[in-house]
């Protein structure tokens, strides 16, 4: 130890580094192996500025990401502010059981899953179809115009999107309601009816994000070798066949990765949007797990931190488990996976 600390304290280190550099160069089987620990310490010392750079980001992650994970321990305790997180009494799975026995448990879980399902069935394929369709457009200017227009809504904030929905779907003067009336559909207060919550949420999501979502597929399509298409054409392959056998396989890895991510966040419905679209009239379909967490833990007059944390934790754990299962399956089935 003494030798090490001395080595670290002064110029000896620089000398040693030089020596090791030389040793590395000449290291043959005959030379004694240098200690792994010493090599590690030397590498760390050599990269000390890199570690210094990392300090702030690591501190950020520790404080704002890992501290709340530690704080989530109160899900297994009856949180008492005077005793703190660690000092509060353990109560095991009490809060989880309470949540599951809650009469609305089933409704909230199914609302969450249904919203995710709608989004996966309608929201997921549209960007793929859009990318395939765009890829077949020969007119360059038209193509880039469609791209610019369809990407744009992505940058509108959730608040404004929901504000626009409120205006456009207004039963008396909303432009969409008026449009539908032209086709004989009677005016409906879409935001005030539980039955319309899922379609409005999903379709406005498609409107906002389909274009943006197609970028990644277009990128994959642009890397397809033109010669492949030309060769197929010479062999008499139709556009449909080329799309099926050249384009689709090209974007398959992207589809799989995005599908894994989608399923891994199945229970993470867009909280902000649901929260903003929610009102007393559509509560039976719009109450999802995360909005309930907010109500129990923050909005309530008597916030129940432990209970709300337990519900949130339940949600996160389901997500992680789903992600791991899907990723493992995808790895075995297709060799494409997140890790």
């Amino acid at each position, binding site marked *: 130890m003494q030798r090490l600390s001395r080595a670290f304290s002064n110029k000896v280190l620089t000398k040693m580094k030089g020596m090791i550099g030389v040793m590395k160069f000449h290291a043959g089987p005959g030379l004694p192996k240098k200690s792994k620990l010493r090599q590690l310490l030397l590498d760390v010392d050599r990269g000390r500025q890199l570690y210094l750079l990392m300090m702030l980001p690591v501190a950020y992650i520790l404080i704002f990401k890992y501290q709340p994970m530690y704080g989530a321990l109160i899900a297994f305790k009856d949180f008492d502010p005077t005793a703190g997180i660690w000092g509060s009494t353990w109560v095991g799975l009490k809060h989880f059981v309470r949540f599951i026995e809650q009469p609305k448990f089933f409704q909230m879980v199914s609302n969450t899953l249904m919203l995710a399902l709608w989004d996966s069935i309608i929201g997921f394929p549209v960007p793929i179809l859009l990318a395939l369709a765009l890829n077949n457009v020969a007119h360059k200017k038209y193509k880039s115009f469609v791209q610019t227009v369809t*990407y*744009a809504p992505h940058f509108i904030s959730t608040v404004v999107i929901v504000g626009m929905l409120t205006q456009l779907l207004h039963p008396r003067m909303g432009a969409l309601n008026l449009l539908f009336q032209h086709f004989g559909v009677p005016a409906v207060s879409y935001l005030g009816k539980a039955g319309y919550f899922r379609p409005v949420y999903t379709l406005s999501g498609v409107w906002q994000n389909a274009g943006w979502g197609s970028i990644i597929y277009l990128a994959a399509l642009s890397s397809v070798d033109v010669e492949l298409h030309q060769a197929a054409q010479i062999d008499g392959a139709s556009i449909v066949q080329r799309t099926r056998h050249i384009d689709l396989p090209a974007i398959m890895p992207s589809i799989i990765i995005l599908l894994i991510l989608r399923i891994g966040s199945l229970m993470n419905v867009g909280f902000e949007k649901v929260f903003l679209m929610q009102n007393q009239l559509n509560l039976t379909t719009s109450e999802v797990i995360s909005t309930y967490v907010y109500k129990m833990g923050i909005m309530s007059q008597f916030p129940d931190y432990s209970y709300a944390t337990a519900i949130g934790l339940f949600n996160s754990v389901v997500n992680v488990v789903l992600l791991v299962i899907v990723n493992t399956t995808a790895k075995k089935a297709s060799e494409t996976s997140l890790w």
Partner: protein
Amino acid sequence: MRFGSLSKGDKVYTVVSNTLLFFLLLVTLYPLLNVLSSSFSDPKAIGAGRVAIFPVDFSLDGYRELSRYTPIWVGYKNSIMYTIVGTFVNVTLTIMAAYPLSRKDFRGRGLFIVFFAFTMYFSGGMIPSYMLIRNLNLFNNFWVMVLPGALSVYNVIITRTYFQSNIPDSFLEAARLDGCTDVKFLTQVAIPLSTPIIAVNFLFYAVGHWNAFFDAMLYLSDTKMKPLQVVLRDILIESRISADFNFDSKYAEAKQSIAEILKYSTIVASTLPVMLMYPFVQKYFIKGIMLGGLKG
């Protein structure tokens, strides 16, 4: 290939695909045009449901009311501040994390990556974060809009990928021979060589700050500190107009329709900065998405 020379199946495919595309284009454009046109229409025309694609009875009433509605301008000013300071902190921290992680000789790189990436898939949740902010006394504090989201791990990963594939190892070796330190290499070689990815970071973070709503709603109750999105929510979704706002006397009896047109002009005015900037920087955004699609 000319359309006439296509086989029957291909003709059908091309027609269907192009029709769908055109339909999608119209569907995307219609709401945008309607909101824009409504904001330039007469409040009465909106009330009567007469505005579709073009302005009806052109009027600037919405914008005149908007210019007098001070809460919006306070929100505007606050959002600009949060966006500037927040984005600057974001980009600095992202580079500080991404650069070491891009270096193959950085011992413990794998561990650091796991340490960062884990937080992408698992989090303590809304309530523990809320309690943390409270314990840190960040309520009604400027920094609550900057610190809790000071770094996005996703951005760190795409930035690291960029550094890895765009800064040749030989540059570092050469610089080292000249006695260049790591920090110096980062600021004088790596960063200047990485302007595209830094632009991507600036844009992603800036849009995020501009559109941020929920944290502000939770942590800022002081009216003077509220960002634009919170003010917008009051006007657009809750239909709450500030009590001390005096409508133009001319409209005393038409308060309702003025409140409606104010909604359209606010939507346009709040979204305009992002929308105007977007066509010019579109390629950087796309680059960011494509980098994100690469496996790190």
